[in-house]
């Protein structure tokens, strides 16, 4: 269901953010702004920095340099985790206290069929993902960052996720999802292509694979080749630096 586009204020802003793991620059001088109610898809090759970008946006890690401006408390769904030794009920009750909706209703929407009083360790991967998604998407956090949005989800789970994302955006939350190349994410406002330490800000224009097109490529020239390659893989039209 499309969400009505309104002029909304900035929700989270990364200003010249650099993240290093040892000598490897995963993100290099990246500047990104996400607005309230915006739905953003993050794409890129494995190891390109999608997860790192989401972790910075959600405030789970602090960049080596640059600044993050945005809410302190965010909702972040990692791609995978070792299930905690708690029941689903205890985990949902304890992990956060800032909810705007009932996580049990969200679990129904996601077609969760695990035991709420059973251990998280007994859940299948898909049902554990649904618990994480229900937790994040019912939080009051203005920023929701979901890594590998569709991982482990069946068809009803994906449909439920779309409903929950729409509800979150309607109340003004910015939603960022990371997705693999072949994973179609419907209804996004724009796509961020991540690669070579850089993030290209991809906005609406000519329609590409998921309704967006590269219209600018920012960042160091060394990152451009990786970004152009990623852009072509997604069917985007990449504008050369000299044409800007």
């Amino acid at each position: 269901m499309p969400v009505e586009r309104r002029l909304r204020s900035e929700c989270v802003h990364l200003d010249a953010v650099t993240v290093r793991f040892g000598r490897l620059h995963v993100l290099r001088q990246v500047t990104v702004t996400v607005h309230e109610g915006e739905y953003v898809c993050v794409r890129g090759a494995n190891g390109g920095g999608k997860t790192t970008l989401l972790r910075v946006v959600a405030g789970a890690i602090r960049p080596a340099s640059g600044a993050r401006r945005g809410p302190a408390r965010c909702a972040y769904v990692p791609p995978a985790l070792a299930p905690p030794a708690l029941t689903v009920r205890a985990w949902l009750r304890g992990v956060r206290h800032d909810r705007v909706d009932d996580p049990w209703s969200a679990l129904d929407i996601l077609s969760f069929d695990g035991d709420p009083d059973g251990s998280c360790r007994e859940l299948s991967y898909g049902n554990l993902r649904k618990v994480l998604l229900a937790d994040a998407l019912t939080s009051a956090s203005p920023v929701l960052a979901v890594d590998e949005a569709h991982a482990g989800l069946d068809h009803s789970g994906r449909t439920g996720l779309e409903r929950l994302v729409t509800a979150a955006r309607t109340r003004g939350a910015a939603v960022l999802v990371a997705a693999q190349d072949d994973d179609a994410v419907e209804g996004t406002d724009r796509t961020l292509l991540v690669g070579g330490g850089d993030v290209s800000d991809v906005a609406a224009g000519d329609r590409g694979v998921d309704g967006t097109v590269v219209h600018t490529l920012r960042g160091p020239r060394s990152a451009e080749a990786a970004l152009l390659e990623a852009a072509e893989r997604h069917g985007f039209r990449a504008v050369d630096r000299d044409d800007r």
Partner: protein
Amino acid sequence: MRFTLALHARSGRWIPPALLLATWVALVVANPGSALDNAANLFFAVLIVAVWATSAIGNVDDDPHRDLCAAANGGPARLAALRHVAAVLELLPVVVVAGVLAVASGPRHGASWGTVVAGTAGLLASGVLLGAALGSFLHRPVLRSTAWTVVVALVAIMVVVLLPPVRGVFHDADHARIGGVGILFGVSLVLAVVAGWAAGALAARLS
């Protein structure tokens, strides 16, 4: 903090340090010295257990779950500080029980009840605070290897125990005096607060 304590309780990682403390307390009660001597003896056990429990609480989940909790709690620094405080809170009731047993099992040797209670409370609280201060640096993301955690913890504990102010306190306790306990407690409190802040800052930098 309740959530962190629930995670730690259900993980079962509190059992080894709890067994160590229970064994140590049993040995002290079975071969009691004076009440203050017992408390000084238990200080070592509480120090080791506090280091162990604090590092275990810091490692209570894997990196992705810690990211999730860090985002929900306002960042890695705040999460590390919350877990540091949770460790101290978890240890306090344990120390109260150990302290009562230490006082009850030994003669006072002329020291007043006030001196014995204040000395015992000060010594054991210092053990908790010093242990938590050390332990807050001995887990991910600061130390990612359990082997290094054990090595660094042992060295740090030995250094603390051999520091002249700590040795002086035990000399006093042997003679039913509590002269340096107040200073030890004050220093431990300051170190615990500074360590909580520094460990949070370090966690934010290394996450």
